[in-house]
């Protein structure tokens, strides 16, 4: 790569004319090949676990032990077995409901709060905002135990008694996120005041302005909040593990873990299970790929 960089530089500054064209071309080819070789090596390392997982998920038990590279006959039945044995149908539906419920709440609270922190004047706005931001520093392990007691109804009486094994326990604590509020506030703050003044003269209040004007032009940051929230909710493990002692609302990740810790050495079924849990995330990723990486890159840069 150093070669390619140097040759490019020389070419730019005109020094390359003194060298023979052949040497230049060789150098460039070598440099370019090294560059692509390194990039490909990185890509291979990133992708091998996926290939391994997919390949193994189609093997027979015997093939996983002798460790063939590719199964002789594709064992589609592994997926059926894993799906049924691990009761994935139920967990999958649970995860979908949990994720969508959480996202609905998350989007509602963060859009409203993000807008208010950016555009509405009210006493204590700065202080409340800073306190919200400060909560991002608190590690989950500090909050986990008191929240567990809270959900069980030990600290204050909850509507409907203990929330263990309920949908509320899995969704309500994640329906607000300081990071999402921050992200949206930063974007809303860039919307010119003139727009708002114009809307006000037309008689629109904050809510109408937010819904009719702000939201349509804020698709990108809202999408980022949606995607981050989706990943967070779908991939959640520790909290659901604590609050789902029964199957009723157990999500997919906890289901996969119980399946894996019970399935023992049946690698092919474990891999089939892993594929099943990944599919929604990967589909979402490939569909929104550009927005996804760009959203996360910019949100990272701003943080």
């Amino acid at each position, binding site marked *: 790569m150093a070669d*390619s960089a140097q040759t490019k530089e020389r070419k730019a500054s005109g020094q390359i004319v003194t060298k023979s064209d052949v040497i230049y071309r060789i150098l460039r080819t070598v440099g370019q090949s090294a560059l692509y070789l390194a990039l490909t090596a990185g890509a291979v390392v990133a992708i091998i676990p996926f290939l391994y997982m997919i390949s193994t998920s189609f093997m027979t038990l015997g093939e996983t032990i002798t460790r063939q590279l590719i199964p002789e006959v594709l064992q589609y039945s592994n997926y059926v077995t894993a799906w049924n044995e691990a009761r994935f149908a139920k967990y999958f539906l649970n995860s979908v409901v949990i994720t969508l419920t959480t996202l609905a709440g998350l989007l509602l609270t963060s859009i409203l709060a993000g807008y208010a922190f950016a555009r509405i004047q009210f006493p204590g706005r700065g202080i409340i905002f800073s306190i919200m931001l400060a909560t991002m520093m608190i590690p989950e392990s500090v909050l*986990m135990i008191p929240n567990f007691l809270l959900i069980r109804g030990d600290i204050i009486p909850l509507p409907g008694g203990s929330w263990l094994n309920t949908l509320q326990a899995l969704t309500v604590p994640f329906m607000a996120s300081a990071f999402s509020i921050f992200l949206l506030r930063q974007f809303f703050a860039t919307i010119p005041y003139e727009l708002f003044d114009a809307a006000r003269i037309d008689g629109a209040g904050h809510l109408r302005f937010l819904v009719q004007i702000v939201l349509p032009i804020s698709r990108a940051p809202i999408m980022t909040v949606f995607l981050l929230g989706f990943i967070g909710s779908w991939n959640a493990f520790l909290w659901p593990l604590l609050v789902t002692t029964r199957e009723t609302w157990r999500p997919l990740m906890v289901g996969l873990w119980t399946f894996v810790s019970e399935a023992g050495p049946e690698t092919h079924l474990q891999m089939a299970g892993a594929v099943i849990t990944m599919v929604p995330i990967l589909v979402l990723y490939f569909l929104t790929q550009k927005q996804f990486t760009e959203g996360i890159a910019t949100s990272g840069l701003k943080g």
Partner: protein
Amino acid sequence: MATTDTPTTQVSISGKGRGQFRWEKAKEAITGYLFVAPAVLLISVFGLIPIGYAFYMSLHRWRVRKGDFKGIENYTDIIGDWKGLLFFLIGVGLLVLAYWIWNKSFKSISNRRLIVGVISAFVIGAAGLSLVTGWNRMLTATTKDFLPSLIITLYYALGSVPLQLGLGMILAFLLYQNIRGKEVFRMIYFLPYVTPVVAASVVFRSIFSPRATSIANQAIGLLGITPQDWLFESKPIMELLFGWEIEGFLAGPSLALISIILYGVWTYVGYDAIIFLAGLGSIPGELYEAAEIDGASKMHQFRHITLPLLSPVTFYLSMIATIGTLKAFNHIYVMRTPSTLGTVDTASIVIFDTFYKANQFGLATAQAILLFFVILGLTQVQNSVFGKRVFYG
């Protein structure tokens, strides 16, 4: 919220009287409070009040149900020896002092540098002595797993953060060159980051399995190394590599922990690369052009343009990565095996076990609060030592 749409809005805009204006302001404030209320309520209930409650719990014997008030006994059990902690903190203080002296020396006149250097070397020596003495006193006195788990967490952080940032930066540089298929590479590198941690950890359990045919063993087989036990190996790395049976910190992490570190690096390199790439893209091209005209070599350009201008991104990523390793839980929980004999149990894992398996809620919250202070202290140090060197635009 709908009240904002009432005709009074229009009346006040046309400007009729002070009372009208005041009512307008009050209404604006009420709207604001209503807008932030849901989020503030949720964050307070699940993110703010629990901190206070955790502290309250940590002062009690609390085995599933609340028991007697114990004062700081939980903390004493964890720390073992308060004098040890004092020595340790004095050591930290001396290190900060040495850093401060060293910094001053660069600003002072050159003939004093030698003296200042000697002084700061002396202070560093004293700091090291104090740190080690304090730490050992605490370690011998403690009856809990928390302090040893901090060492494991430190291994984990030291093993994964520099490696992941370094590789991420290299990948970002390669991607930044004028290449074809950039989008495809970027998409592939980012893939591990979005993959569900539990599912990926299940795959890596199999990759790092002790079977002779596992991918990890086949890979080291290419280098002529005999198959290893990977995630099942509790022996420290120094013993495996060189046969040295050292005690204490220098023995290094177990091979099982190294397998977990490799998984962590696999997950985050792509994420770091994407953010570095965005950072590289925001460096103005004119700077490089100007440097090229002045005859600066690529190395010089890297050293004096890229690194300084990329430093906010590096700083941000190193903070995120360090905090992330200190809080890491899911993949370690899924990948750990009983035969690691606690050599992969980082602080978060120990807290979880104390809480979930041993049902010692009070002790677990005390550990969690101490972990929070460790995180706070480390980020403070990172901020004061590296934060100043970060070059913002």
